[in-house]
């Protein structure tokens, strides 16, 4: 004998699947609106009644195709059947957007009761009514026990569509949630696309009117750049256009994908548009802006970010307030000039819900399942933004070159103007003005000349630095590495293979080679370390650690000049927010000066003392040496560029020190004969803590 069994569900499952999905009010109501869209409605109206307190009601009504009794029982009341991925279009050619399942259940359970009224388009003389009272389920053992009668009535008024009333709301909807609801409803069907209307949402609330009016303004024409990009069958292309649609730059797959150019994007076909606004900039392309900065900022505050649309319907949470899924703000923090943030841009990503690598939405409607396809979509969008940033960098550089030329010609124009004004004066005054102006011109020319020399010197030093780094790289990687390994091998073989009496003869030259290689290696490491890219990052920097690392790096130089470096640090680890490079340029230049002074004066007892003292929010670093002190120059002159006590010196070291300290908000003072008899520099830097 056999008997049949079947799964049945406890009513508790309704709460688990409904409330515990934890949908926000805007997501829940959005699900009902999506149902209206799928029913080919042209308008969907949402009424909110007494929602400021629990117990209120929400009515969602549409003029869509409605349902008959069969559709209600076979579809509407069946949970979990999703047609989301169906490629079957609706009568009006729309891709189904609603989940037809769990998301809608969560919406229906917002209240204690649901009243459904629906008139099918095929038979508008019949009205179907269904009421669900959720407390009935609490008393039942299994879900199926609660019968839901569908009442069929005559309908003389005609029309068609569905009206869903949620009665006795379990919670309240506050002002902020209402604004979020209005925003999410307005963004639900791609508002960027003028042509794709035909579905209108009306929310009967003042917040909606306000936000709708703002959305309608559409400041796209005021954008500084519009990035248009697509992926078709894995191949990307992009363009940057101005407000009139004129192309400013074009990129093919290779230019966008760069080092992975031979790989296709394993994403669905994508359209990615981004409108970038240079709100703080004086960029000339932005001067034609029609709207005020404040207006645009307010608009972007509401709608900014990159929104994603699948088959024309928005997918949350991408582009929601606080959702920066492309990490625009992080990238902007690093390159504020070239990168847009969510506050200065608006964008959309359009994807299809079918086809190769189609993205699948998560059951809890919290976005797409983050698979390879989604990751590739993100890579594509980020690569396009990186290309835009590179292009902007290039533009900025071109502008700088252009401005430089323009400044020179502007100078000649102004010179001519002054001369023509002088010519208008009487002869005596003319002479006086000409002399005065000639004097001014000579001083200015000298200043320009000095600056030019200084810039040239900086360029020469940079070139020397780059050349030194290249040399260091090459020698470290190949020749020195090979010498080092072979010296180690020789040492080991001498130990094992050479008779005791001959060992010394071989060991001595081998050790000499080893020592020389070690010195060369350290010099190379020091060179490379000084220019390391990481050191130019602004971050929390501990001063004592910087000093320790620097002294370690300079050991071959100080040892080579038989110099003892004494450290007397105050307590704690004082730190500030800066780059390691900035602090190193201060201390390395001062220590180098001391080493050079010893050499110049032939000092016998060579000592450098570095003493730090923390005083409230500042650190004092005193660097004293036992050299000759400042004897050939005036103490005030040493800071000037090009002034050096050493014939081979650049005269830029102390200028760099002073400029850097000014940037750090610090200061420097000097004593010609300090604590150790030689020069002593007192550096003061503001710190954040110890």
């Amino acid at each position, binding site marked *: 004998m056999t008997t049949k069994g079947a799964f049945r569900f406890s009513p508790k499952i309704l709460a688990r699947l409904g409330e515990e999905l934890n949908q926000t009010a805007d997501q829940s109501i959005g699900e009902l609106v999506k149902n209206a869209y799928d029913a080919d409605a042209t308008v969907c109206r949402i009424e909110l009644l007494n929602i400021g307190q629990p117990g209120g009601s929400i009515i969602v009504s549409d003029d869509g195709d409605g349902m008959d009794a069969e559709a209600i029982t076979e579809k509407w009341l069946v949970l979990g059947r999703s047609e989301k991925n169906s490629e079957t279009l609706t009568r009006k050619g729309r891709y189904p957007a609603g989940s037809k399942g769990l998301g809608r259940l969560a919406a229906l359970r917002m209240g204690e009761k649901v009243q459904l009224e629906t008139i099918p388009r095929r038979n508008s003389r019949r009205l179907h009514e269904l009421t669900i009272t959720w407390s009935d389920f609490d008393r039942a053992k299994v879900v199926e026990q609660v019968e839901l009668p569908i009442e069929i009535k005559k309908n003389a008024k005609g029309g068609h569509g569905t009206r869903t009333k949620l009665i006795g709301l379990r919670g309240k909807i506050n002002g902020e949630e209402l604004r979020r609801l209005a925003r999410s409803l307005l963004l639900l069907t791609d508002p960027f696309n003028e042509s794709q209307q035909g579905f209108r949402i009306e929310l009967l609330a003042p917040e909606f009117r306000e936000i709708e009016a703002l959305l309608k303004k559409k400041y796209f024409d005021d954008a500084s750049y519009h990035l248009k990009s697509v992926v078709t069958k894995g191949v990307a292309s992009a363009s940057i256009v101005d407000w009139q649609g004129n192309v400013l730059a074009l990129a093919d797959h290779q230019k966008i994908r760069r080092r992975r150019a031979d790989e296709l994007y394993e994403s669905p076909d994508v359209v990615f548009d981004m409108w970038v606004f240079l709100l703080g900039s004086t960029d000339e392309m932005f001067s034609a802006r029609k709207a005020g900065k404040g207006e645009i900022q307010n608009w972007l505050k509401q709608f900014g970010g990159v929104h994603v649309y699948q088959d024309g319907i928005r997918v949350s949470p991408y582009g929601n307030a606080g959702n*920066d899924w492309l*990490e625009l*703000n*992080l*990238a902007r*923090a*690093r390159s504020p000039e070239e990168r847009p943030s969510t506050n200065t841009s608006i964008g959309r990503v359009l994807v299809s819900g079918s086809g190769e690598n189609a993205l699948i939405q998560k059951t809890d409607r919290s976005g797409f399942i*983050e698979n*390879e396809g989604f*990751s590739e979509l*993100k*890579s594509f969008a*980020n*690569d396009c933004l*990186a290309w835009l940033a590179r292009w902007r960098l290039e533009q900025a550089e071109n502008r700088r070159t252009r401005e430089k030329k323009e400044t020179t010609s502007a100078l000649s124009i102004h010179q001519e103007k002054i001369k023509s004004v002088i010519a208008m004066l009487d002869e005596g005054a003319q002479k006086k003005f000409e002399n005065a102006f000639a004097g001014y011109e000579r001083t200015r020319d000298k200043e320009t000349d000095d600056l030019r020399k200084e810039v040239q010197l900086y360029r020469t030093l940079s070139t020397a630095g780059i050349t030194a780094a290249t040399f260091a790289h090459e020698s*470290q*990687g*190949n*020749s*020195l*590495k*090979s010498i*080092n*390994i*072979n*010296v*180690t*091998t020789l*040492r*080991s*073989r001498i130990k*094992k293979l050479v008779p005791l009496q001959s060992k010394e003869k071989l060991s001595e030259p081998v050790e000499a080679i*080893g020592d020389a*290689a*070690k010195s060369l*290696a350290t010099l*190379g*490491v020091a060179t490379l*370390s000084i220019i390391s890219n*990481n050191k130019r*990052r602004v*971050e*929390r920097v*501990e001063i004592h650690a910087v000093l320790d690392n620097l002294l370690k790096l300079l050991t071959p130089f100080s040892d080579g000049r038989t110099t003892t470096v004494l450290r007397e640090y105050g307590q704690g*680890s004082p730190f500030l927010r800066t780059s390691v490079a900035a602090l190193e340029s201060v201390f390395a230049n001062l220590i180098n000066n001391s080493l050079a002074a010893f050499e110049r004066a032939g000092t016998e007892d060579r000592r450098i003392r570095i003493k730090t003292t923390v005083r409230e929010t500042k650190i004092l670093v005193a660097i004293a040496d036992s050299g000759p002190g400042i004897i050939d120059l005036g103490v005030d002159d040493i800071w000037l560029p090009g002034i050096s006590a050493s014939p081979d010196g650049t005269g830029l070291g102390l200028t760099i020190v002073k400029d850097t300290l000014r940037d750090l908000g610090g200061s420097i003072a000097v004593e010609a004969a300090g604590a150790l008899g030689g020069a002593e520099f007192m550096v003061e830097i503001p710190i954040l803590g110890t």
Partner: protein
Amino acid sequence: MSITLLNRVIDTVRLIDDEPIVRTSYRQPVDDLNLNAIEVVNRIGSLAEFERLFNFDRDAAICDFNLKRRSYSAFDGDVLVSHLYKKNVPAVLCTRYADDLPEAIRHRRRHIPIVIPPEELSEEALIHAFKTCIAEFRNQYSRDRKPWRTLIRIEGCEPTGADQLRLSLFIPGWNSSEGLTFTVPTSPRTADQKAIEHIQKELQNGEVARVYAQVNLGAERKQDIYIYDWAVK
């Protein structure tokens, strides 16, 4: 010829460097160990192709870090050594950066147990390196390499490329006052990703992020620290 270390036989050491003169130099200590030294001469175009060169049971490797200056390899040594480690092939990275490891090496340190500076590449150093690898393949770690689950406090992060984030963090279980930086990939998506997203979110909200991870708390130097298995709880 072969040697047996911790019951594992090694008979061949493959030498990976884009400089022929350096590969020849690597050969010296290997010769002294009486092992077969084979230079990898052809371009390393893919990891699959690369691993086919190896007998996973009997081979070991010495590898340089910078391998991409010429067309010798599509990968740097950190990628190759960590790949071999994951395949249970003892491999040692030989680089002048040993005392100041670049971030690229540091974020793969979990799978790069030994980094030897060129001047220390000797028979003894090689034996020690290979033994360390073999022991770790059997989950036997030295004190400075043993992983412990611990709390990490992240105070800053910044992108350092399309797919990477550089975190500024403290590991109180290692040293509560010494900060360090650590680079983590943001792509491809891994199990760690949830924690990385949590970190970004917390920092964007102006908070300090706290997560858990496996860390070799016994490491003496900052650069020897490895961090993996990031988790929010």
